[in-house]
């Protein structure tokens, strides 16, 4: 529980003065994401910058330092019957909230409860000039100024050092239940989308190894009535299934070296005809693929499916790992990078070769 803001600010200013690049690191559980970190750059560690700054359960708002581990946040919320509804993956005990926002990672409930980006209300950010700035706030609605807080989601620290985050939190559901049935992949994609179109308390929809899993969460009577109406087998240890999915601990994810591709696409798109294994989450909107391929092969398929693809883990991380960007968007992102980090101190080349 320490506020290292001043120390972090000094480190940034010093690095700037010395022309030293910085890799921003929290708990170090997401080092595999993005392109390989620049070995020449120094380390700016947020690991000690921890602690819950403010938590008002009745306001549904929590403000935390960016290096706070997800598990500490969840423990504090649980005491009040609340939770992070975007279900951040815990890739290790040290996974932090700052890294989760920088990488925009959310779990199985994402299509219904939103992503971490959706729940961010405000941040404090150290930019590349070492200025400690405050954007957004601690209230649900705030349209004063540009939404710099949500801009950070997915930026992987390339725009600055997130030091503090205010988040919307929500009550935990009273009841949860998982339905499972055998189904082929393509049929399951259509099925999950049809179910998602019904006004029922759906909070997870996943297909894996020939079975489709639906999670219901909410008022007990609503969950039970929906389960009866929809049918299917009730999975005995349903919550364990979703927790393992959330934390990428299923057998599907076991081989950490195998290239793992992530498609974020139209939930109804047909799955691209590729050899390999699939895991379909988010009712079809997030699709994990294990197989031999290159970004150049997969990007057109992702585009056809209405979305994008990235090399999430493993494989060659020296080239591009993110979906290619058209030139006008590259130009805007380069200029934005310059606007926040004029000397290109932070996470050089982590997101794209050209940023």
């Amino acid at each position, binding site marked *: 529980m320490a506020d290292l803001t001043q120390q972090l600010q000094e480190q940034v200013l010093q690095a700037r003065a010395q022309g030293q690049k910085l890799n921003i690191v929290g708990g170090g559980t997401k080092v595999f994401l993005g392109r390989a970190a620049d070995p020449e750059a120094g380390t700016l560690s947020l690991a000690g910058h921890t602690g819950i700054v403010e938590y008002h359960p009745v306001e549904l708002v929590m403000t935390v330092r960016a290096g706070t581990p997800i598990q500490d946040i969840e423990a504090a919320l649980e005491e009040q019957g609340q939770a992070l509804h975007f279900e951040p993956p815990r890739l290790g005990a040290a996974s932090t909230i700052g890294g989760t926002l920088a990488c925009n990672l959310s779990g199985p409930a994402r299509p219904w409860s939103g992503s971490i980006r959706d729940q961010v209300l405000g941040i404090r950010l150290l930019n590349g000039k070492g200025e400690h700035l405050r954007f957004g706030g601690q209230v649900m609605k705030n349209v004063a100024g540009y939404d710099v807080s949500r801009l950070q989601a997915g930026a992987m620290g390339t725009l600055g050092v997130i030091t503090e985050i205010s988040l919307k939190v929500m009550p935990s559901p009273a009841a949860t239940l998982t339905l499972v049935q055998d189904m082929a992949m393509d049929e399951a994609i*259509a099925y999950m989308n049809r179910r998602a179109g019904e006004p029922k308390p759906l909070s997870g929809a996943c297909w894996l190894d020939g079975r489709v899993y639906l999670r219901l969460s909410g008022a007990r009577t609503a969950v039970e009535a929906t389960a009866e109406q929809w049918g299917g087998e009730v999975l005995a240890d349903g919550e364990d299934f979703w927790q393992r999915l959330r934390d990428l601990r299923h057998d599907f994810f076991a081989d950490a070296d195998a290239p793992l591709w992530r498609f974020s696409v139209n939930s109804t798109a047909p799955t691209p005809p590729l050899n390999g294994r699939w895991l379909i989450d988010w009712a079809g909107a997030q699709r994990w693929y294990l197989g031999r391929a290159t970004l150049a092969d997969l990007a057109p398929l992702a585009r056809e499916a*209405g979305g994008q693809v990235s090399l999430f883990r493993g494989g060659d991380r020296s080239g591009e790992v993110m979906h290619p960007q058209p030139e006008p968007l590259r130009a*805007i992102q380069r200029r934005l990078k310059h606007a926040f980090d004029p000397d290109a101190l932070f996470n050089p080349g982590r997101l794209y070769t050209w940023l």
Partner: protein
Amino acid sequence: MTSKPKVSKAELAEQFRAFIDPDFVITDDETLRPYECDGLAMYREMPMLVVLPETVAQVQRVMRICREHEVPVVARGAGTGLCAGAMPHKDGVVLSLAKFNRILDIDPLARTARLQPGVRNLAISEEAARYGLYYGPDPSSQIACTIGGNVAENSGGVHCLKYGLTVHNLLSVQMVTADGERVTLGSDGLDVCGMDLLALITGSEGLLGVVTEVKVKLLPRPEVAQVIMAGFDSVEKAGDAVGGIIAHGIIPGGLEMMDSHAIIAADDFAGAGYPREAKALLLCEVDGTREEVHEHIAEAEAVFRKLGATSIRTSQSEEERALLWKGRKSAFPAVGRISPDYYCMDGTIPRRHLARVLLAMEAMSKEFGLRVANVFHAGDGNLHPLILFDANVPGEFERTEAFGSRILALCVDVGGCITGEHGVGVEKIRQMAVQFNDLELQQFHDVKAAFDPSGILNPGKGVPTLKFCQEYRSLEHSHNTQESTDASHG
């Protein structure tokens, strides 16, 4: 962008008429007049000219021409905005998206709608209704406001706490940049690689690009919705009841509060049967499956009763639900009946400070000699104080603005912000200096320059110049430090 454009009005009009129907390149004062303001009519400016293109390619050409000549461009939807964000620039072009009014596609299985920017908010839900779907954000202007404007303002509505703002309900936006390039931000997926540009441009008030197409998420229409109306004999008790509901684990679809002035005005206007003796009224709507609503309504009634509600009425039919909402939804015109003019503020506060803020506002009301009625999106802390005034009384509008300004400063003081959903525009540009310091404002200017290096998109709105802020802060400081008994100073 303060220098005079390098091109005359006639030359510019001629260039536009080469590719846009000449009837829709407007240059005469009489036809320009309706464009001089948006929904905040106190702020007016006549534009140099107005164009109404009908294809994206035409929008791109308009932008390229304006970029070449450094002519300011103000994009405009239905003009229902409440912060003068669409007020024209006197040397600039108003780019009306009114002709982009088609719903391009609804995909019921994927639960999405692809829209031109000029589609009305309510029209989306009306069209989606045939599939049992609807569009979540429902600003009170939804009958007229457009989705393009909703993106520009990140519009909310009464259902935000549960269903989110515009930013939570978008999949992608096609935008024309200041250079006339067409780009797509977002995708059909729920996220894209890299920094979240879609979030950044949502709520950017037309300063970063011109929205030419929007894809939104649609939600399944809840099986049932019921509303509880609960009266309280104090604002504090009503505030505690809001906290009580949320502490109980219930997230209402809508949770609105009105103070006694608003209750009486709305009840006179709508005949909704509101408890006229109450000091505060809550409307708490619970929606979902039949079972869920049944369970939560019973629990919510119990919470209200326990926390001292003096009256409770729960809608037993769709007609009754509509009637109870009618008072709230007509609160603004209702207040309009008890005063020649009213000025709607839009601050947000952490809910726990509600009683303190309302009491301070009452004191200010006496100090400024102006009545104030309050409607409040209680679930998400968004206050809408309505200051009642008469524009025909000299000095009264200036006093109203000063009162409003003090309310917003108070919101910032208690940890809130100057605008929850109406935007900054011209109206609240001064108060930006209260909420942000110079380094933060400079960062905003740098963001703007990354999209619009020559500053032609909606100049003079959203983010104040630093020089302006310094002057404003020192002015405010001198006002706040003198013990003022003269309420009429600005």
